[in-house]
């Protein structure tokens, strides 16, 4: 499960943390031991020509030292906006409202200005993106791009930095690293480029890696290699990782905990095994049933989620999932369910498992809601209920 490693922070980090803690000693409670990243009630709203897009709505979560937390959701659910806000790449402006706090090892990132953030980026927190080309400079040799960060943060000599670049490329499984440092990004395949961005991300031994769809653009055999590499480095270096993906399958065996996002909100969060064994939120359940299985017979009728993810310009009122949910009742249309601990449910639930639903899966209330909708042939939202929608 979670792997609290309690690595001693680097001197620079400790300094920075100390400084900042002193600065707002009055306000901030010290995070619980082992908590590395705390996100509290984060909102991001974009004012656009067509109206306000509430892309992230009250997201709170905690990441412990050395832990892998997966954020899973369909496209447009707010994963990237959330990740960029955590990183400080989105801040308040005339077009953008931000709310809530992001705390990293006692430092309130959401209070820092660009200069303060620059001291944390790369060194303490690193980012790997879906498309490696967006983070690589096309006209700069690979070696120079790696040493850039090293020289900046560690004041290495040019020669030492070059040796370190070669060593880093080797550690991410790139062949012929001595040759690669002299090549340009376009001379490498997509998988090799992603290895390079991972090498850059790891060059300063960050304590937290944010990976936003790091393998989505890659082929399946390369995806497996990159995910193995990330998992291996993560556990060896005791690094915490926020792994963002639209693909539940990818995180099944590669995360300690999962947070499921829908329409800008976290709708369920649980230790990975519990989420798969006993999902409580109907959207999580539906998502699992919609994925074609890779064992058993073929031509399996897939469970269908009708409609599509909502437009965040005008999300549905009440529960955001209500227009697509097979169990929706009147209450779901007007009242938004809060995030509640599963441990309160009859039969108990696992610590750290919470869900957002008035009629959670596996309860008598859910069975009753299901029965009522099947009987009347539609949900309270007027969505026709078909056999494909409701798992037996």
């Amino acid at each position: 499960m979670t792997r609290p490693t309690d690595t001693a922070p680097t001197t620079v980090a400790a300094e920075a943390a100390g400084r900042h803690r002193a600065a707002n000693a009055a306000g901030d409670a010290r995070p619980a031991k082992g908590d590395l990243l705390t996100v509290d009630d984060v909102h991001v709203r974009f004012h656009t020509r067509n109206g306000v897009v509430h892309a992230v709505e009250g997201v709170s979560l905690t990441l412990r030292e050395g832990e892998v937390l997966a954020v899973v959701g369909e496209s447009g659910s707010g994963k990237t906006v959330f990740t960029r806000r955590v990183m400080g790449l989105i801040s308040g402006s005339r077009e953008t409202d931000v709310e809530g706090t992001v705390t990293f090892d006692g430092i309130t990132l959401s209070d820092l200005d660009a200069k303060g953030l620059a001291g944390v980026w790369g060194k303490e927190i690193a980012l790997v993106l879906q498309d490696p080309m967006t983070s690589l400079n096309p006209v700069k040799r690979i070696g120079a791009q790696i040493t850039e960060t090293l020289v900046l943060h560690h004041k290495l000599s040019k020669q030492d930095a070059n040796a370190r670049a070669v060593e880093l490329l080797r550690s991410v499984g790139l062949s012929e690293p001595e040759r690669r440092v002299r090549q340009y990004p376009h001379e490498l395949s997509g998988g090799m480029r992603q290895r390079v961005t991972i090498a850059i991300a790891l060059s300063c031994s960050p304590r937290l890696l944010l990976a936003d769809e790091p393998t989505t653009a890659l082929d399946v055999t390369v995806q497996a290699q990159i995910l193995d590499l990330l998992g291996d480095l993560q556990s060896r270096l005791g690094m915490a990782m926020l792994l963002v993906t639209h693909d539940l399958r990818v995180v099944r065996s590669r995360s300690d905990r999962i947070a499921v996002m829908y329409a800008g909100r976290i709708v369920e969060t649980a230790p990975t095994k519990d989420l798969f064994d006993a999902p409580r939120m109907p959207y999580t359940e539906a998502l699992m049933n919609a994925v074609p299985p890779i064992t058993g017979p073929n031509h399996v009728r897939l469970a269908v989620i009708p409609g599509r993810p909502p437009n965040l310009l005008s999300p549905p009122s009440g529960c955001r999932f209500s227009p697509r949910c097979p169990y929706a009742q009147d209450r779901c249309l007007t009242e938004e369910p809060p995030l509640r601990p599963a441990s309160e449910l009859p039969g108990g639930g696992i610590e750290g498992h919470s869900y957002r639903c008035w009629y959670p899966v596996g309860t008598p209330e859910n069975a009753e809601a299901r029965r009522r909708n099947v009987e009347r042939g539609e949900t309270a939202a007027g969505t026709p209920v078909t056999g494909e929608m409701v798992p037996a």
Partner: protein
Amino acid sequence: MSSTTDMSTDTGSVLEKTRDDRSADDVVLRLEDLVVEFPAGAGQVVHAVSGINLEVRRGETLGLVGESGCGKSTTGRAIMQLPRPTGGSVHFDGRDLAALSPEEVRKLRPKLQMIFQDPISSLNPRRRIPDIVGDPLVVWGRGADKDKVVPDVLRAVGLDPDQVADRRPHQFSGGQCQRVSIARALVLEPEVLICDEPVSALDVSVQAQILNLLEDMKARYGLTLVFIAHDLGVVRNISDRVAVMYLGRICELGPTEALFDAPVHPYTRLLVSSIPSMEGAQRGEVGTGEMPSPVSPPSGCRFRTRCPLATDRCADEVPQMREVAPGRFTACHHPVLDTAVGEPIAPAVTAVPTTPLTASNGAGSNGAGSNGAASSRTES
């Protein structure tokens, strides 16, 4: 056959009909030694498809899988004669398309339809949905049927004809547009529908809708499907048989379940064990390396630069497709027989295995690794 299928025929009877027809010798499409090459500048050639032999049986769904750039789309388009292949032949209903005049090929077009990955950009943005769907009827001189046929097809793909009457593609989501392109492909009642990554651009929740729809349409219209995709879970679920491609060639062909449960070609084994799964931990071997460039593919077996079982023979001799068990074909000098995914492998035939294929060892250390120009360009 399906060309005369009444669109209002009830699903059940058509289903039975297609089942009965699904016999091994009722071949609707036959690819013989198909070759497609593209000029790559400086006198070089992209060997996109290099000698494919394949039969598609009437009424089946044949899956075509492999990593990007292995030649799946090129194969699909070559079947459509878009463009005409560089070499080899495509027989459709027993007729060699290469031997036909462009006009004769054009006449057969309605029977062979294709849908693509990006539904939105494959539809004309300026036209209304019913026109997009009805256009093929007009082109083929059946414009008079439009008012009857179009609403039927729209309903069949789950769209309300009244609701979409005045709409244009940009007013629809990706999933809805894919329904429109399926309707457009079906309106001429084709025999064969080639689907090129039809759900790759869609969210999982929408993907399931389209996959179920394709299964329904196949039964209703008595279709034969060639289903191209890189998502192995998707292909596994929809296909009766699967052909695995690597760098322009087919390396394995067989019934879906058998092929996924106990692949015989080392590349299929790598592919299948790389699938991230809802069922839990990854199964079996994990590979290293990536596909070499199709401009200068490795000599002999094109997979040898990544293959843990490669021997000198693999560098010298192109492995030919042969039947290694009933209905199971592979192009490999040392196929892996009767070994489930995840079990350690040993080659079935003689030749010394250089390294057993287990987690975390890969291509680099094998005997053929130093052979040929391409291997030096390959990640290991």
